[in-house]
């Protein structure tokens, strides 16, 4: 990839984009345990939004609530209505979530099939995203014939092919080895650059959050609260490897660790 472009133009104050996801005073309790305590948040359209926090801080729960898999205890969570014919969101899960009994192609087509999209639309979207994730050659294989990295690519292709307005990603790369993770981060950025959907990306890796996101919310240890939201003013398109050599990158990572280390420490007790 070409070297990172240095932004020459002065920072222009962009008009605020419409809010895509609005969270107000979200509280989630499991019996007596409070997982999330009063989180309020606006995520603007087209933002790549990462959430980091110590394990058990409720970040996955927050995403599951956004994805309709868990209910709020109190508060409001709202994703703006999508354009007609498009789903609000698609989710990429942590770990193996593609169906072992479907081929790569059938897996990628799943969301569209559930929406009863016309065959031509399904074929076109699936072909496009299998191509972008480098899976075209493997489209007729079953998941057990693929490596872990490839399976996670299928999961990403499935989410993108569904053409949602919001992508919810729950530590999608956490089960991968570091090399695969780096490769998939770059691929995700490349795919995302095309139409810049709103993304909510959960991770426990500060590096990953800084590499990918425009904004990062740091959550406190249990119960999870929004500790701070940090802007990542690194220009795009980004090169995952070059970034690591960028002093600003190190500074942002260091800054986030400053917020996080007390929480990690607290989570241990």
């Amino acid at each position, binding site marked *: 990839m070409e070297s990172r472009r240095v932004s020459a133009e002065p920072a222009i104050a962009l008009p605020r984009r419409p809010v895509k996801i609005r969270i107000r005073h979200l509280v989630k309790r499991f019996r007596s345990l409070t997982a999330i305590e009063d989180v309020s948040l606006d995520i603007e359209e087209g933002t790549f939004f990462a959430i980091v926090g110590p394990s058990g801080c409720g970040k996955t729960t927050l995403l599951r609530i956004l994805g309709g898999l868990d209910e709020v205890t109190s508060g409001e969570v709202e994703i703006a209505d999508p354009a007609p014919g498009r789903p609000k969101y698609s989710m990429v899960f942590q770990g193996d*979530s593609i*169906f072992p*009994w479907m081929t790569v192609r059938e897996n990628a087509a799943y969301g569209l099939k559930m929406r009863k999209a016309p065959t031509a639309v399904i074929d076109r979207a699936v072909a496009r995203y299998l191509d972008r994730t480098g899976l075209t050659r493997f489209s007729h294989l079953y998941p*057990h014939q693929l490596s872990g990295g490839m399976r996670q690519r299928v999961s990403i292709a499935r989410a993108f092919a569904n053409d949602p307005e919001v992508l919810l990603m729950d530590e999608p790369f956490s089960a991968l080895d570091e090399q695969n993770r780096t490769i998939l981060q770059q691929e995700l950025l490349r795919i995302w650059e095309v139409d810049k959907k709103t993304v909510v990306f959960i991770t426990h890796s500060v590096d990953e959050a800084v590499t990918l996101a425009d904004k990062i919310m740091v959550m406190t240890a249990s119960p999870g609260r929004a500790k701070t939201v940090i802007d990542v003013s690194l220009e795009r398109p980004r090169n995952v490897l070059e970034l690591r050599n960028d002093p600003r990158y190190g500074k942002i990572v260091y800054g986030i660790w400053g917020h996080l280390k007390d929480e990690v420490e607290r989570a241990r007790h």
Partner: protein
Amino acid sequence: MSASDIADIGTAAPAVDVGEEARLRAKRRDRIISVASPLGLLLAWELAAQASLIDVRFFPAPSSIIGTLIDMAKAGELVENVAITLRRIALGFMLGGVPAIGIGIAMGLWRPIRALVDPLIAATYPIPKSSLMPLILLICGLGEMSKIVMVAIGVFYPMAINATAGVLQINQIYLDVGKSYRASRWDTFRTIALPGALPFIMTGVKLGAGLALILIAVAEMVGAKSGIGYMIWSAWETFAVKKMYVGLLVVAVIGFVISLVLNEVERVVIRWKADA
């Protein structure tokens, strides 16, 4: 790690070849023994019958049984009875198996249905199915239906129970994926629960096939004028011992062929499994 893997690492190439060859030779020897053992028994039986060491009224020589088999096949009665029995098994499988898969998966997916149906299955499961024959004859009469129902009841239980177990062992994440992609109830059933439970359902089908064969034989002995079971029973009534043996042989072959077919079906329907 197997012994041969250790040999791979620890010793020079020729030693590995020798080990490999010894293993192949042992495998070949085992296969020969497996084929030879039943043949040997038949041979001993034949010789003992020829030499009148055993009572041929009870244990007619295998060669004479084969002779009877050929006569019966030529007369057409054998093929006809086999066809009738197979038809009853097939129809019984459909009558019992299709609802078993539907109900079993529904029980696995939806708690209230499990709460509703589980006690009924638990309460009736221990009843020996063959003991229901008089009741079935009473309700369905002596026609085809009573035999088909007998088989259906037999296959229902193992298939329903295995279908439920199959759904319950499906990783929750797949159901979450379905929910998150807005799969309808029917789509959840069709695209997640059914394929996910299929390996277990196939086990149920195999168990059901074994039961079906037992039950159809019993049902035909008691309440039929056709089929392999009837053939065996009427052979006893007329003391046609060779015919009886032919019947037993044919039942064994049917069972064997069914299990071969089911293994093949299993291989095809769960080809997505890593170890299939």
